[in-house]
């Protein structure tokens, strides 16, 4: 699947999900596909922490459904995160692993063992039950709504096999936010949606 086409398909099926992106490519592609400046936290270059960040958010706000993007470069840095995710088993969290078999944010450098890494099998070996894989857009477009309906049977893990960013995709704009602006945009959106108080005072 082409990277950006995949993200446009994800965006097409998104309803009210809160989104957290991972380093580099997923943030660029999601920004290009949605221009979302409130309900997405563009967690830049956290080196594998996008789903842990999302797990904390999903735990705190069970009323919200969370999509957490992670590249397989980040996944390789910390696959043990799946043990924590399985243990928490949050039904409102969908971990979307974007597998392009390269370090996409750093000139598509090779991942270790990239030909043989079986991310779905790794997830199943850690006890995850809701594990799904997509490698063609037609299936993704058809089946995604059922997969991400949320609050169904616990934590969901989706593997998307995509092509590395093309030269044209590498030139996509980065989300243009400084950290504190993003924090407040996103936090105020969470407050509005949930009626909670993130920052200790409401506007």
């Amino acid at each position, binding site marked *: 699947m082409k990277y950006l086409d995949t993200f446009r398909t994800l965006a097409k099926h998104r309803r009210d999900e809160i989104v*957290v992106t991972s380093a580099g490519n997923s943030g660029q592609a999601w920004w290009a596909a949605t221009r979302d400046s409130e309900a997405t*936290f563009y*967690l*830049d*270059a*956290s*080196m*594998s*922490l*996008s*789903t*842990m*960040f*999302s*797990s*904390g*958010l*999903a*735990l*705190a*706000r069970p009323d*919200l459904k969370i999509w957490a993007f992670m590249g397989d470069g980040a996944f390789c840095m*910390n696959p*043990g*995160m799946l*043990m*924590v995710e399985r*243990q*928490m088993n949050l039904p409102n969290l969908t971990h979307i692993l974007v597998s392009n078999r390269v370090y996409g944010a750093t000139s598509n450098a090779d991942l270790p063992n990239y030909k043989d890494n079986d991310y779905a099998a790794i997830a199943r070996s850690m006890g995850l039950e809701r594990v799904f894989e997509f490698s063609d857009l037609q299936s993704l477009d058809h089946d995604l709504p059922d997969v991400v309906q949320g609050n169904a049977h616990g934590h969901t893990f989706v593997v998307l096999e995509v092509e590395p960013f093309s030269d044209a995709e590498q030139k996509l704009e980065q989300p243009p936010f400084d*950290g*504190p602006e*993003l*924090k407040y945009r*996103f*936090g105020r959106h*969470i*407050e509005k949606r*949930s009626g*909670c*108080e*993130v920052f*200790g005072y409401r506007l």
Partner: protein
Amino acid sequence: MTEKTPDIASRIADELASCGVKLVASLPDNWLMNVIKSVDQDDRFIHVPVNREESAIGLCSGAYMGAMGSAALMGASGFMTVIYAITKINYTYEIPLFLMLTLRGAAGDHHKHHISNGLYLRPVLDAINMPYLVIDNPDHISEISRSYRHTRTFSRPMAVLFTRDLLRGPHGGGGH
């Protein structure tokens, strides 16, 4: 373990609860085991044992964005592995984070494998401008909630560092 340490652990738990901490993410350190056990058995908290210290940073930061109070509990060695995560997430986005660490490698810690923490833990905290407070006396446990609240004002991380004397007593057992 001395008879005193379970009381210290429950007082630390009470202090955390008093300032609204709900999520506690932990990695073990032998000095911290009574605190971890106390939190784990306490219905006021959701205790999440994590796979590595960076995961605790991610979890607690996300919980903050969902308006849930949290604390990350880890040893000094574990903290030394999380500098990038903290500078990237908590400094870049100005997300508060409350850490409870062990002051390993200080006088009273007779383990040579903590010499590096004795040498570098506090200089590293200073290097990233992270405020910290050493708690070495049961009378100072109330500083936990004061420090936690400071993270919310400061919009960045702060750590409290527990000494061996506090957690195991000045004549506590010879365990690790």
